[in-house]
């Protein structure tokens, strides 16, 4: 199979207006991916599926990632010569900038026909709050159906063009998205007999207010 750089070069030939970024994976697996602009995602997905050299006819996995807002501190080091003639002084200047967060949908594509893959593509939303729309790739790969519903359920990405976008795991009345980093669980830590770590922190307010009534377990008397 051709490398991801070659796929990207051919994609840019086919869609010169599209913005396709090569995302490296620094880990030992080195499973690099292509970040694809949401506006061209549907056409590019169809091209990846139908291209005779690739024929990525199967999407084995679609998943989401939440990237919250991140404060990044840049340190620039400059050396100032000492006017008195001593050794040069090193000055560190720290600047902080806010990298806005976004939500990501990741698709792992394989070709059953040509027995090759995976090719990993990513789509990113503009932010995490109001612009969380991405085009659905379910019309291209049917196996994305439930997985995009799961991403919608747990991360809150709205897939336009999805044939049946409903919650998959949680109930319809549920309002939150539990896999987001800022999800706050309901406070039901009233009985944690073996609490430790983060659970202990949540259980402490209940334990201090232990003027509780006598134990009343269920069952027949």
């Amino acid at each position, binding site marked *: 199979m051709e490398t991801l750089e070659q796929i990207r070069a051919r994609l840019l030939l086919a869609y010169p207006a599209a913005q396709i970024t090569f995302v490296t994976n620094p880990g030992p697996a080195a499973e690099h991916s292509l970040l694809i602009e949401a506006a061209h995602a549907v056409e590019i997905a169809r091209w990846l599926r139908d291209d005779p050299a690739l024929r990525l006819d199967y999407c084995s996995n679609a998943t989401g990632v939440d990237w919250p807002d991140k404060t990044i501190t840049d340190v620039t080091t400059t050396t100032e010569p000492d006017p008195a003639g001593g050794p040069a002084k090193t000055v560190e200047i720290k600047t902080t900038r806010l990298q806005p967060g976004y939500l990501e949908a990741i698709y792992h594509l394989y070709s059953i026909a040509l027995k090759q893959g995976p090719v990993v593509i990513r789509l990113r939303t503009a932010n995490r709050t109001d612009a969380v729309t991405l085009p659905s790739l379910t019309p291209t790969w049917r196996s994305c159906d439930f997985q995009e519903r799961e991403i919608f359920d747990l991360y809150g990405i709205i897939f336009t063009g999805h044939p049946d976008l409903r919650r998959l795991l949680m*109930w319809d009345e*549920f309002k939150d998205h539990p896999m987001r980093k800022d999800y706050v669980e309901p406070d*039901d830590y009233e*009985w944690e007999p073996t609490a430790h770590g983060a659970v202990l922190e949540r259980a402490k307010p209940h334990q201090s207010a*232990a003027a509780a009534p006598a134990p009343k*377990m*269920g*069952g*027949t*008397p």
Partner: protein
Amino acid sequence: MSDPVASPTPFPAAGNISDAEREDLRRHGILMTSLEELHNWGRSNSIWPLQFGLACCAIEMIAAATARFDIARFGAEIFRPSPRQADLMIVSGTVTKKMAPQVIRLWNQMPEPKYCIAMGACAISGGPFKQGYNVLKGIDRFIPVDIYIPGCPPRPEALLNGLIQLQKQIKAEQLTGPNAARFTRPEEPSEFPIPAYGAHDLVPTKNDAVWAPPTPEAKA
């Protein structure tokens, strides 16, 4: 929960006749019993469980029904597909918050006398998924549980042991008097409120009439 084993008269005989005298009569071919004992004997040896499973514990429950373990030896092999025909609900597995209202609805549809076994760590407390966003922290927050079987999952032998414990409890139940069994008392609830799906959690998150957090033991 009462301990059926510690009960002073596990098999109350009629009148003032002692168990030794009764056994003596039995050797002469005279069987003496009471209606209560006969009733409990029949009930405890034909406990029909409700046929449903929630997670991997259900696989062990199925294994308990196969020839190797053979739950039929205890008269509990007739898994009923309808709650109207079932005596026992084996909550076998993780109860998700999405599934909890349906489990409680099934319990409400079972006729009295009915019993509940919480099988496995998940049904007891949420188990390894306790802090999960969609996991109920024990079915006893909504319905009364008679027997708790720990394990993850419990082996079929453990389920059979739980069933034997339930049989002991049923055999010790009294039908009349001040200590009569729960199902004979009309003031005890048979149906329990079904929680609604809320915006963040089940509403309510627990039934306060059934469950309250146990008071932590004071350290010596």
